[in-house]
């Protein structure tokens, strides 16, 4: 066992030395991990949107979820929405978008996303942060029992993601983590 431990240590040191030099680079494998992290945040957002949009959700719970959803975003993020009959972009602040959603008050809101997504390369911006775009397709179905109205659409969502390496102190240790924040979202109604 002792023999093994020293071997591990040696291997560990050897590999650690290599990685210091490229710790700020985003290798394909790391890019993939960041991609899935970003995608997860996108899915979380969709879950939150379903909760906010549902009439069954209590007001306090909806507000708590709105806060959580808002935490996914970088400050000042906006939604830019266009539809098939209205090509120009209508802008909403993210929080405003959630509040509108809550006000819609469908009895049942079913938000699902198609089993496909696309993730762009990460590009570096002037301040050194990385930026990418995740594209997902979402189906929205809202049913109002009173009026019997049923609204349904399919939208393409191009979601900005900001990726930044950050450090924090946890229990006296320095933890390096990837901060993935959502940014502006372009929502396009599709003819699917």
């Amino acid at each position, binding site marked *: 066992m002792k023999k*093994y*431990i020293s*071997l*591990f240590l040696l*291997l*560990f040191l050897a*590999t*650690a030395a*290599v*990685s210091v030099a490229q*710790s700020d680079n985003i*290798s394909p*494998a*790391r890019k*993939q*991990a*960041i991609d*899935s*992290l970003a995608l*997860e945040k996108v*899915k*979380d957002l969709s*879950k*939150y949107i379903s*909760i906010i949009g549902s009439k069954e959700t*209590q007001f306090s*719970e909806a507000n*708590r*979820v709105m806060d*959580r959803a808002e935490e996914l975003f970088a400050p000042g993020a906006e939604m830019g929405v266009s539809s098939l009959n209205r090509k120009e972009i209508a802008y909403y602040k993210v929080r405003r978008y959630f509040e509108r959603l809550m006000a819609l008050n469908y009895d049942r809101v079913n938000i699902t996303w198609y089993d496909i997504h696309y993730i762009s390369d990460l590009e570096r911006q002037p301040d050194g942060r990385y930026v990418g775009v995740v594209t997902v397709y979402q189906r929205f179905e809202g049913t109002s029992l009173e009026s019997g109205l049923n609204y349904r659409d399919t939208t393409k969502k191009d979601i900005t993601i900001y990726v930044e390496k*950050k450090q*924090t102190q*946890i*229990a006296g240790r320095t*933890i*390096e*983590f*990837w*901060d*993935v924040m959502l940014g502006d979202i372009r929502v396009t109604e599709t003819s699917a």
Partner: protein
Amino acid sequence: MLFVQYGLSQRKNKQFIKPKMKRRTIQSPVSTLLTLALFGLLAMGACKSKKKVAPAPAPAPVEQPAPTPPPAAPQPSAEEIAVGKLENYFNSIAQSTNVDAANRTINEALGMFSNSQTPVLIVIHQENGIKDYDEPTTIEKYLHYLKDTKKNLNFISDIRLDGNGRVTELELRRKK
């Protein structure tokens, strides 16, 4: 000319493929060893913190060889028990269809922690022994996250307990 060019690109391809294959054959035992090493370390860490569970208050930063490995094997350690309980809580919160029931489970689970702000680290990637984390969160936020998103994507890869057997730190990892 065309042919020469083609040959060149062929060779280029081969050059790229070769080291890759070589690397792979080396890498897999290495990564297995590394994983083993990691778990070895983890196990050692577990033994160490178990010492902390005992009344001795000194945190003893000095590396000590794992004191009594044989009894550790048959009987689950405090950490193992805590991990088992927590994994159950995580699952039940993520699968809960009732917000009130989920909130009750969350409060129950929070009782296992030294406080609701106990840090939770999520490893998203590991390369050359360096761990990449998601943004650190707290246990309270994480439990609500499980409730809201109804998905339990991570497993517990490391746990720290204080002298009272309460969790002071949790490290999670993505299930593949």
